[in-house]
């Protein structure tokens, strides 16, 4: 990786990890544009996507040239969690992905914002955005879980299907100091158990870590759907280098 002038003060690997999380989830949420169940929800998801894109731009710019990093890296060079690259699926899958990630992001940025590290200024702003994203996901989880038989079954299926990608969130990120990761995981589990319980859903009992472990995104290993997502996200820039609005 090329070093930037600020490379000795900014932990590049951490900026990439957090920036790629935001970028990839932003793109996944943007896929709902034109497809959301109702217009109001489409705007809500697009708003969340734009918040995340803003975070991604700041973070990737800390690590290098934002456009080069977003549009010219190969799959193996991305450091995002496997959770955020999972396809939107039905609306319940999108909400479950949002719930798992935004609770994590809210708790993490809350910790980063109260420190004096290089991510504190960004985290101070992102923590408010994440609080809203988390509220949005919680509200929908409650309504889908405690809704009709159909919505309950779909929501349960979604939280089960994405459960195995959640353990990865609590592997320490290189370059982020001062975060107690086991405590972060305990807090996250507490929130998730509370929300799922109120939504009359069952907390999945499958493994989140183990001998076979989903979750090597931080090491550049990604799941099959990610390649197709990247191809779509990058093709315009690769076909027309330097294109602008």
């Amino acid at each position, binding site marked *: 990786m090329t070093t930037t002038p600020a490379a000795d003060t900014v932990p590049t690997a951490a900026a990439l990890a957090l920036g790629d999380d935001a970028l990839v989830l932003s793109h996944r949420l943007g896929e709902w544009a034109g497809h959301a*169940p*109702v*217009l*109001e*929800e489409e*705007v*809500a998801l697009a*708003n969340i996507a734009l918040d995340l894109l803003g975070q991604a731009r700041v973070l990737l710019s800390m690590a290098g040239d934002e456009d080069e990093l977003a549009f010219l890296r190969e799959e193996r060079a991305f450091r995002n969690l496997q959770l955020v690259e999972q396809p939107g699926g039905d609306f319940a899958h999108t909400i479950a992905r949002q719930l798992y990630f935004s609770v994590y992001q809210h708790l993490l940025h809350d910790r980063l914002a109260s420190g004096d590290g290089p991510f504190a200024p960004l985290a101070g702003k992102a923590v408010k955005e994440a609080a809203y994203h988390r*509220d*949005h996901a919680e*509200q929908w989880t409650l*309504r889908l879980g405690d809704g009709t038989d159909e919505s309950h079954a779909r929501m349960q299926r979604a939280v089960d299907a994405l459960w195995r990608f959640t353990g990865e969130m609590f592997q320490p990120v290189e370059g982020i100091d001062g975060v107690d990761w086991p405590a972060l995981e305990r807090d996250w589990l507490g929130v998730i158990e509370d929300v799922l319980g109120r939504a009359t859903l069952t907390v999945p009992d499958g493994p989140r870590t183990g001998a076979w472990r989903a979750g090597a995104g931080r090491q550049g290993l990604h799941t099959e759907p990610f390649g197709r997502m990247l191809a779509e996200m990058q093709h315009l820039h690769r076909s027309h280098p330097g294109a602008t609005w």
Partner: protein
Amino acid sequence: MTHTDWPLWEVFVRSRRGLSHTHAGSLHAPDAELALRNARDLYTRRGEGVSIWVVPSSAVTASSPDEKDPFFEPSADKPYRHPTFYEIPEGVQHL
């Protein structure tokens, strides 16, 4: 749009302190809490508001177009009710 069963809500936004809530538009939502959140996303995303009200559209009693004349016509010929005979002092805002 298949969810035509979601009720309609009227949205009122107060743009800044000291002003009153103003009707901003309407939206569909399954309940009041989500209506409030949808209103936040639809009507305050460019920093327009400090406070939002949502009201079920069904709770609004509106005057009917048929009643337009008896309701509003009589006030037109009472010019003494209109504050048009005053000079507005310089520097007075919000009039």
